[in-house]
């Protein structure tokens, strides 16, 4: 698998392919993969984000501005099963590799493009990032509070979602190549905004059915999200009737527990002002993990707000062996998003240094002989 992407979404797609067994070669330019410049950094100036999304692959530095560099990359693509890119269609037409000619030459290739807006359509040449994906997918319009600005999802959600969708689509295309005559590859076009708008689909259709857009909440209360408790914040977003009954009993609000009107969630939502102040006053007396443990014993859903250091120490995640260091050593990574019983994911390598494996990749992926590789390195096209 050849990774020519320069985005977090492309890198995450390649990370998933590598985690589940693909041999991934990252080609990066002499400036290095752009994620290497993203904060935060550790004491040795390694980008944490690059460490996370570029792990588990090898790296070659090859100058695409040079004809010899492009030829070497082209050769690697022609020998690969999968290519991940994130260039716009115009950019590809100018610099290659454009998908029509590549697929003609190598019909088995699966070529996946991941861009903010997709490779076609009126916005295809517009730049974008996680912020604009949040804006255009609807998510920003419903996150946050009505009297404050719309709020993007935290961090790199559009990138992770799009990378995951791209990964699944690539595997689907590999299955199709395996199953469906004439066993060809294809071009896959992923738009980060469309993936986020896909995750937004319930709010979109709710708004259509009601004839007005879902709005940001006017206030934070226990019907919508975390509220203050003695040592932090806690979400008691109840769904089923017995959760409500047991939770109200735990809070000592027996009249709310016993009144059958409160059993259905739509009724609670529409009349929340009648109970939230009382319930929240009781919640404020609890420590978050004491309340969680009490409710968990009753099998009631409950959500203490945990921060990243608390998660790192979390006993349940430790039971599940969720954190692991790469086989070659290094910091503990949070594990994969799902566990495969028969074909578990692997985390072999930390993110490579730029060009750490140039010689191996030019030999194994591009099929060059030692003389050609020496020449590329001597001329500075590869390093």
């Amino acid at each position, binding site marked *: 698998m050849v990774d020519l992407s320069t985005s977090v979404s492309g890198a995450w797609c390649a990370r998933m392919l590598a985690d589940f067994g693909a041999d991934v070669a990252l080609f990066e330019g002499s400036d290095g993969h752009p994620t290497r410049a993203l904060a935060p950094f550790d004491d040795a100036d390694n980008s944490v984000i690059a460490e996370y999304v570029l792990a588990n692959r090898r790296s070659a530095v090859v100058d695409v501005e040079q004809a010899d560099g492009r030829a070497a990359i082209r050769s690697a693509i022609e020998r690969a099963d999968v290519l991940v890119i994130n260039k716009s269609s115009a950019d590809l037409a100018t610099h290659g590799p454009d998908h029509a000619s590549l697929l003609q030459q190598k019909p088995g290739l699966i070529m996946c493009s991941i861009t903010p807006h997709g490779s076609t359509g009126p916005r295809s040449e517009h730049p974008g990032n996680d912020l604009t994906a949040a804006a255009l997918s609807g998510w920003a319009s419903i996150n946050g509070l009505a009297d404050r600005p719309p709020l993007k999802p935290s961090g790199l959600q559009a990138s992770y*979602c799009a990378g995951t969708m791209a990964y699944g*689509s690539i595997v689907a295309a590999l299955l199709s190549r395996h199953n469906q005559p004439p066993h060809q590859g294809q071009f896959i076009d992923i738009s980060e905004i469309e993936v986020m708008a896909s995750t937004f689909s319930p709010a979109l259709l709710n708004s259509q059915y009601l004839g007005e857009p879902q709005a940001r909440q006017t206030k934070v209360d226990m019907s919508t999200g975390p509220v203050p408790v003695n040592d932090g914040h806690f979400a008691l977003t109840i769904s089923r009737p017995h959760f409500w009954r047991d939770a109200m009993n735990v809070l000592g609000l027996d009249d709310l527990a016993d009144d059958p009107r409160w059993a*259905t969630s739509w009724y609670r939502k529409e009349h929340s002002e009648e109970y939230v102040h009382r319930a929240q006053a009781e919640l404020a007396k609890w420590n978050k993990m004491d309340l969680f443990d009490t409710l968990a014993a009753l099998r009631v859903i409950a959500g203490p707000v945990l921060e990243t250091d608390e998660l790192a120490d979390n006993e349940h995640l430790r039971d599940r062996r969720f954190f692991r260091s790469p086989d070659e050593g290094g910091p503990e990574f949070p*594990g994969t998003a799902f566990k495969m019983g028969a074909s578990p994911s692997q985390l072999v390598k930390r993110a490579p240094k730029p060009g750490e494996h140039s010689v191996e990749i030019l030999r194994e992926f591009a099929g060059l002989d030692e003389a050609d590789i020496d020449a590329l390195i001597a001329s500075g096209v590869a390093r």
Partner: protein
Amino acid sequence: MTGPLSGYRGIVLTQAWAGSYATQLLGMLGAEIIQVEFHGRPDSWRGSYDRPIPETVQNAPGAASEQHPWNVQPNYNSVNLNKQCITLDLTTPDGIEIFKRLVPVADLVAENFAPRVLGNLGIDYESLREIKPDIILCSLSAFGNNGSWRDVPGIGGTIEPISGMSSLLGYEDGSPLNSGQMYPDAAAGLNGFAGIVTALMHREMTGEGQYVDLSMQESSIAFIGDALLEERMTGNVRGRLGNRHMTFAPHGIYSTSDDSWIALAAESQGQWSALCRIADHEEWLSDPRFADNATRKTNEDALDAQISAWAAGQERDALAALLSNSGVIAAPVLDAIELAADEALRERGFIVNVEHPEAGGHPQSGIPAQFSNTPATIQRHAPLQGQHTQDVLHRLLNIDEPEYRDLFDRGVTGAGPST
């Protein structure tokens, strides 16, 4: 069905959002997805049987004169496209027996009950494997199938805080928030889809099925994994950043003159220069506080104040177009109605009008991937409850009309509340 997964069949017990979204993505890519819904205990996203139907739904274009609350729930209808739905009372031996007869003709089973439920029903992974040795089972649960919290229930609204996501979502000066709808479900759905196709690939290569265990807590953490790794690598506990970026400035959402909002950012000096020229504030370029990204980041409050003051006099769409066409990262903040009407997304074939026999015609989010050789298409509206029971049982199990009628009369199948 068309699409890269054409030829695969899933018999799925998925419900609500996470599981339904995972299997919808399989169906969107061409797999035949048959949802088995508990007769008498509906998919929770169909809502309760007695929920009032809003007038806007009763009067929607193309809406049926007779509507059932459970068939006109937008939550359900938004995440079950390209599926069929049958109902079985899985609390009865007859219901379980029919389910077990469907397993041999399935490639995969998926579910998102609490972990103990499948075992209680006698259809856990080991039982399914006895019926079909290479079956794939994907379970999506709150905390996964082992560990000390295995049997603790959860939904998106509690997983968001307990996965750390809420601690990162919010304004710089505010408390932790949950997202406007339960985002961890969507993340789990994408990851469940990914896990299932990974298992199909492994089966094609080795002949071996497997169990895919997805914890919603873990799949959420994976999507903030850089914040977890930051804590492991540096000891820093990341907080809430609002709309800001850890590296680049400006990066925010600003109010515009037409009572709307625009998102804009500059990730390069070129984008910053273009922004200053378009804003007609070239003095920003010579302001030492804004000279390069590092100084802009240091002086981000002052920078945001300047941009806010300027954006407040601009029209959202005109400004977004001007900035985007000049290579600056910018976009209008669309609400859900504007999103459904967005011309660019319609031109791409992403937003599609779906006709539903009871709810009428509405635009919906379509397929978030385009395939050049095996195009994926929306072929089915979200199914009515039990819409396909008779057809599926006949087609796959050769159950004829009298036998189906008998099942119906005995309450093993049916639609709506059990009588």
